[in-house]
C-alpha cells in the first residue's frame, strides 16, 4: 500500500498520462477505453494551460497516411467498416494499421450479427462465425512474431485470439499489450474476463502502474473477494480519485455483491446526484430497490431511464424489475425478453426472467431461462439456485440437491444456499446433513435469520432438547440484537419452547421469564399464562429456597455451551 500512495502522489502526472491516452484512443476509435479514461481524467483537477501534455510526435509515416487516415476514420465513425478498411490498405503508419485491422474485425463482427438473423436452418444458427477472424489472426501473428505490434494492435490480436477460443494465447498477448501500453483500460478489461481464479491472477506478471490498482480492485470484485476490493477502492479514493464516478459505482456494486444493501443504496443515490443521466449499473441499483421493495423510488428510476434511452439493456432490466415489484410478471418477463433481444449475452436478464417465470408458475419456461443463463456464464450462482428452487417447487427435493450444491460451490459463504440445501435434506429425512447445513449457514452469517430456527426445530424433532434450547436461545439473541425491525413470528415459538424446556428442567426462574415474554405475543399469550400458573403451583409446593435445589442441577444438567438466559435482559426492547 505504501508503494501505491507514493505512486499516486503525482496526480498531475497521472492526469497528463490520461489526457494523452484519451487522444490516442479517440484516434483509433476505441470508444470505451476513451470513455473510461475521460471519466477518470474528469475526476482529477484541471491542469493549467502550460502543463497540458504535448500532442504525440508526428512521424513521416503519419504525414503520408494523414489523408487516407482522416477519410477512413470518418467512414469508420459512420460504421462503414469495409469502406474504411479499403482506403487504409497499404498505409504503413502504426495508427493506420491498427484502424485498418480494427475496421476489418468490426466489419466481420457486424456481418456475423446480421447473418444470425437469416440463417438457413436451426442448426446453422450457432455456426455463424466471424469469417474475418482467421485471416486477421494469420496476419497479426506474423507481425507479432516479427515484433512489429504496438500496444493497440497487440490488444486487437488478443481480442481476435479470444474470439477464436484460444484463451491461453490470448492471456499472453493481453499481458504483453498491457506491458506495452499500461494506460489502455480496454486491454486490462479483456484480461479480467479471462482470469478465472485467484491463483491465475497471482501468476500473471503485470506492469507496476497505477492502472494496476484499478485492475486488481476490479478483479477482486469479479472473483467475489469483496473485502479486498473495497480496501483497494478505498485506497484509490484516498489517493485522490474521490470524485470518480467509476469508483463510486464499483464500490456500490461491491456492496451489492455482499448484500450490504443500505450502503450500496446510499452510494447509488450519490452516484445519481453526481451523474443523473448515467445508465450503466442502474440495473444493479434497481435490484437493490427491488430487494428493499422501494416502489416509488424504483418507479422514478424507471421513468427517468426511459426518458434518457429506452433501448438500453439496463433500462429494460429496470422496467422489468419495476413490473415485477408491482406483481405484473407477464410484463416484467416481456421487458427482460426485450433486454435479451438487445443483448442476448446479458446474463442478469436471463436469470431475472427465470425468476419472473417462477412467479408465474411457468416452471418449464423458468428452467429454460435459467439454463440459458448458465450457458452464458457457468458461474452464475443465482441461475443454479433458481433451477434448484424450480425443482423444489416441483417437489423434487433430491433432484434439486444437485443444483443447490452447484450454487453452494460457487458461493460457499452464502447462507441462502446452505439453508436451501438444509431444507432439501430435511425433506429427504436426512436430518444429520440438514443439521450440518443449518449450522454452517448460521456460522457464515445468516442473512434471513432462519437457519437457527430451522436447526432448533430439527433438534426438537430429534428430541435433542438441549441442543434445541441452545439454538432457540441463540436465535432469540440474534433477533433482539438486530433490533425490533425484524418482526419475526417465530420468536414466540422459540420463547414457548424455552419456557417449557426450563420448566421441565426445573429452572423455574428462567421459565417464568420466558413465559412472561411469551405474553407479549398474541399467539403465545395463553400458553405463557398457563405456564406461569404452572410455575407458581410448583413453587408453592416446593417451599424450599430455590438456590439449594438448583445449584447442583444447573451444574450437572445444563450443557456447557448454554448461555445464561439472563442475557436477554440486555436486549429488552
Amino acid at each position, binding site marked *: 500500500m505504501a508503494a501505491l500512495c507514493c505512486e499516486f502522489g503525482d496526480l498531475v502526472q497521472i492526469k497528463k498520462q490520461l489526457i494523452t491516452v484519451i487522444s490516442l484512443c479517440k484516434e483509433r476509435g476505441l470508444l470505451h477505453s476513451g470513455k473510461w479514461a475521460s471519466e477518470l481524467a474528469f475526476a482529477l483537477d484541471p491542469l493549467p494551460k502550460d502543463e497540458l501534455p504535448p500532442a504525440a510526435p508526428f512521424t513521416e509515416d503519419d504525414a503520408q497516411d494523414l489523408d487516407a487516415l482522416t477519410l477512413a476514420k470518418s467512414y469508420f465513425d459512420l460504421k462503414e467498416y469495409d469502406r474504411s478498411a479499403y482506403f487504409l490498405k497499404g498505409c504503413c503508419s502504426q495508427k493506420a494499421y491498427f484502424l485498418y485491422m480494427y475496421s476489418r474485425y468490426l466489419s466481420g463482427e457486424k456481418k456475423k450479427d446480421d447473418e444470425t438473423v437469416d440463417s*438457413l436452418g*436451426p*442448426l446453422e444458427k450457432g455456426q455463424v462465425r466471424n469469417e474475418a477472424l*482467421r485471416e486477421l489472426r*494469420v496476419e497479426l*501473428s506474423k507481425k507479432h512474431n516479427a515484433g512489429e505490434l504496438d500496444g493497440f494492435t497487440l490488444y486487437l490480436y488478443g481480442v481476435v485470439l479470444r474470439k477464436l477460443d484460444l484463451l491461453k494465447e490470448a492471456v499472453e498477448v493481453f499481458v504483453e499489450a498491457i506491458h506495452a501500453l499500461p494506460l489502455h483500460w480496454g486491454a486490462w478489461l479483456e484480461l479480467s474476463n479471462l482470469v478465472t481464479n485467484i491463483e491465475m491472477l497471482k501468476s500473471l506478471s503485470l506492469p507496476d502502474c497505477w492502472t494496476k490498482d484499478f485492475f486488481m480492485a476490479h478483479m477482486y470484485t469479479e472473483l467475489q473477494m469483496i473485502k479486498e476490493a473495497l480496501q483497494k477502492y478505498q485506497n484509490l479514493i484516498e489517493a485522490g480519485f474521490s470524485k470518480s464516478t467509476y469508483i463510486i459505482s464499483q464500490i456500490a456494486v461491491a456492496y451489492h455483491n455482499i448484500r450490504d444493501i443500505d450502503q450500496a443504496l446510499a452510494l447509488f443515490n450519490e452516484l445519481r446526484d453526481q451523474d443523473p443521466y448515467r445508465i450503466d449499473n442502474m440495473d444493479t441499483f434497481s435490484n437493490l430497490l427491488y430487494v428493499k421493495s422501494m416502489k416509488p423510488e424504483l418507479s422514478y428510476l424507471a421513468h427517468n431511464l426511459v426518458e434518457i434511452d429506452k433501448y438500453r439493456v439496463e433500462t429494460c432490466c429496470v422496467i422489468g424489475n419495476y413490473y415485477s415489484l408491482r406483481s405484473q410478471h407477464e410484463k416484467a418477463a416481456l421487458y427482460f425478453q426485450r433486454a435479451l433481444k438487445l443483448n442476448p449475452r446479458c446474463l442478469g436478464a436471463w436469470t431475472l426472467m427465470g425468476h419472473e417465470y417462477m412467479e408465474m408458475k411457468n416452471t*418449464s419456461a423458468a428452467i*429454460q431461462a435459467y439454463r440459458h443463463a448458465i*450457458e452464458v456464464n457457468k458461474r452464475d450462482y443465482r441461475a443454479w439456485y433458481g433451477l434448484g428452487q424450480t425443482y423444489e417447487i416441483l*417437489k423434487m427435493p433430491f433432484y434439486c440437491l444437485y443444483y443447490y450444491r452447484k450454487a453452494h460451490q460457487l458461493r460457499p459463504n452464502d447462507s441462502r444456499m446452505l439453508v436451501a440445501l438444509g431444507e432439501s435434506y430435511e425433506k429427504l429425512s436426512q436430518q444429520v446433513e440438514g443439521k450440518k447445513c443449518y449450522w454452517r449457514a448460521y456460522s457464515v452469517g445468516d442473512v434471513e435469520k432462519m437457519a437457527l430456527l430451522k436447526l432448533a426445530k430439527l433438534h426438537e424433532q430429534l428430541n435433542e432438547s438441549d441442543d434445541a434450547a441452545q439454538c432457540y436461545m441463540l436465535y432469540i439473541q440474534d433477533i433482539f440484537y438486530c433490533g425490533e425491525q425484524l418482526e419475526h413470528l417465530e420468536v414466540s415459538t422459540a420463547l414457548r419452547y424455552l419456557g417449557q424446556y426450563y420448566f421441565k428442567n426445573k429452572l423455574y426462574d428462567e421459565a417464568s421469564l420466558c413465559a412472561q415474554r411469551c405474553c407479549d405475543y398474541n399467539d403465545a399469550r395463553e400458553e405463557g399464562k398457563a405456564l406461569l400458573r404452572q410455575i407458581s403451583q410448583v413453587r408453592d409446593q416446593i417451599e424450599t429456597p430455590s438456590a439449594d435445589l438448583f445449584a447442583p442441577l444447573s451444574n450437572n444438567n445444563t450443557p456447557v455451551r448454554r448461555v445464561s438466559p439472563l442475557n436477554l435482559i440486555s436486549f429488552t426492547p
Partner: protein
Amino acid sequence: MASVHESLYFNPMMTNGVVHANVFGIKDWVTPYKISVLALLYEMTASKITLPERRRLNKLILPLQQGPDLTLGQFLQTVEECCPQTAYAVKLRLHEMANGELKDMEYFFSTLPTPFTAFDSEAYKTSVVGLFMRHMLLAYNKLSFSQVYKLYKSLQHYYHSHYAKPNDGQMGLPALVADDSDMDLTSTEDTVGDRIGRDEMDTPLHASELRNDNAPSRGPLSQKQAEYFLARQAYLLKNDENKALKPAALQEELNNMLKFNPDFAEAHYLNYLNSMRVQDIFLSAHSLLHYFDRLILAGNEGKSNGDEGYGRSLRYAALNLASLHCRFGHYQQADLALQEAIRIAQESNDHVCLQHCLSWLYTLEQMKGSDSTVLTEDSVKMAAHFCLPYLASLGIQSLFQQGATQGKTAHKLMDALKDTDILHWKHSLSELIEISLAQTTSIWRMYGKSTMALQQAQLLLNMSSLEPVNFGVQQNNTEAFTVALCHLAELHAEQGLYFAVSEILQHLKEQFPPHSLHAKLWMLCDLKIQFERHMNEGKYHLAEPLVAAISALNRTEGLYRKAQVLKALNRSTEAYSILQRLQLHCEKTKCTEMVIRVMLATAELHWESSGFSTALPLLLQALALARQHHLQSLASETILHLAFSQLMLGVPEQALNVLHEALEPVLAHGAVIDKGRALLLTARCQMAVAGFRPNRQGQADLNLAVLAVDTLKEAAAYFSRLSCKERLRDVHYLQSQLHRSLGQISQCNKSAMLFRLLDQELQSPAPPVSMRL
C-alpha cells in the same frame, strides 16, 4: 451368476429397442444436397432412361430423400451405380449452377415441374416425389434474398469442395470428369487455388486451429446429419460399443455440436451415455440433468401430469438419476432418487413409470445384498397386470436368479424359464431371450452339467440377433454375451484347452475393453482360469499374486482362493481361520456353492492333521447340501472326498462302492483334473482292496491289480494333459509298484524312471502319497 439388469434404464431415444434421435419436429430447409436430389428428380422426369435403370433409380429415391445429407461425391457415386448417364446429367446441371451465377440457381428452381400442373408425371402433388418437391419449393420461396444468396454460396462450396479432395474415395468421378475437358480445367484450377490459399494460411497456425480445416466432418452439420450422427452413435453404444467413436473423440464431436447448437438436447443424452462409458460421474450427472432440463422445454405444451408433457419427463428424470447413482454404487443416493421418482409417479398415477421404479427398487435391494424376493414377485404381478411384458419377464428372470442361488428345485426354475421364453418369443424381446439363454448356461454350469451349458452358450453365440440389423452391427456386447463367453472360456479351461481359452479371452478383451461396463466379468474369469492353472501345475508362487487381483473384483472369491493358496503352502492355521470366516459370511449371504467348497477345503485341512474321522461329518453335511441344491459337480466332488477319507480310515471296499456313484458324473461332465483325481483314487482303492501295502508284498488279487494298472494309465493321460506333474509323479510311483508286484519288470523300471525324472524336476520333497486326493 451376474446381475442381468444392466439394460433396464429408460432411454428416451428408444422405443421397442429401436433408437430414434428424431423425436422433434423436422423442418425442411433447402440445402445444397437437397438441390442435388431435386436435380436428380428433375433429370429423371425429363430424360429417357432405360427401364432397369429407372427401376434402380426409383428404389433410390426414398433413401435419398429421407436420409441425411451426403457429400456430393457420395451422392454422385450412388446415383452412378444405378445409372451413369443420369449421374452425368445431374453433375452437369450442378456444374452449371455452381460455376454460373445466382440466376442459374433461380432458373433451376423456376424450371422444376410444378406438382400442381404435372398431372401425369411422377411429380404429381400427392406422390412422394411431388410432396418433396412441394416442400422444397415452399422452403425455397420463403427464403429472403440474403438467404438465397447464402444458399447459393453454400452450393458453390458444396460443389467445389468435392473437387478439392479428389482422393476421398470417389473413384468413379475422374473418368466422368475426363469427358469434359473444359470442366476438368476449371475444377483443377479451383483446387490448386484453394490449396495454395490454405497452405499459406495454415502454416503459422496452431494445431488446434488446423484441425478445423482438415477434418471434413467439421463442417456445419445439418439437422438431419446431426440427428443421424446421434442416432447412429447411440445405437452403436447400445449394441456394439467398439464400433462407436472412442470416448474422447465422441466427446469432442458432441462438444462441437453443442457449441453450435446448445438447444440440441439429445446430444446431452448421448454425452451422458458417453461419460458413463468412462465412469465419469460428474460429467454424466451434469449431462443427464441438462438433458432433462432441455427435454422439459421441448414438451412444455403438454399437461403437467398426463402421460405426455413434461410431468412425464420429470418422473423419468428422477428415475434416470436413480439409475445413474445405482451404477456408480451410491446406493443411498439412488434410494432417495428412486423414492422421489416413485412419489411423483404416484401423484400422477403413472403406472408404467411406477413399474419401472419398482423394478429398479428390487434391483437396488439386490445390489445392496438384501432379500428382495417379495418385491420382485409384486413387480412381476403388477407388470403382468399392466401388460408390460418386458418388465414382467425381467422380474421373472430376476426371481429365477434368486431362486437358483437359494436352492429352488430345478424343475420349478426350468418351468419358469420356459414360460418366460414363450413370452419373449411372442413379443420378440430379443434382449431378454439373450439373457435367458445366458441364465440357462449359468444354471447348467451350476448344476454341473457342462455339456448342456456348452450347448446353451453356443446357442446364444450362434443365434442371429433379432434386432433389425442396422449399420452392419449385430447386438453382441450385452452382458448376456459376456457371461456366455466367460462360461465358454471356463469350460474350455476345465478341459485343458488353453489355446482356445486364450482366443476367447482375446476376443472378450477386444469386444469389451477394460473400461467398459462388463469388463469385470471377463477379468475375473481370466484370473480364475490362470489361478486354477497355476494351482494344478503346482506353481503356487505364481498363483499367489493373482489372489489380490481376484479379491479386488470379488471379495468372497478372493478369500476362498487365498485360503487355497495358504493350504497349498502348508500354512494351515491361517487358511483355517480364513475358511471359518468365509463360511460364516457365505452362510449369511446364502451362497451355497461357496459354502460347500469351503467345507471341502476345511475337510482337506483336517486330513493334513490326519483327522480323517473329523472330516467325515463336514463332508456328509456338504453332500447333503449339494444334493439338496442339485449341485451335481459339487456333490461328486464331495463323494470323492468322502471316499478318500474312507480309504484312509481303512475301509477301501466302502470307498470303492461310494466312488462308483461319483465316477460316472465326473467322467461325463467333470473337468480333466477331476477325472484324473477320481481315477487315481479309484486305482488306489482298487489296490487297497486287492491287498497291496506299500512295503509288503502280500498275496494280492492280481485281477484287481490289472484293473488298477489300467485305471492308473487313464489317470496319467488326464494329468499329463494338464501337465500336473506332482500328481503324475504319484501315478508313476504307484504304477511302478503295481508292475513290480505283477512281475512286469521292464514296465516297472520304466515307471520308476519316469518317477525319478519327475522327482528331480520338481525338486520339492514329495509329500506322502497318501495325504492328498
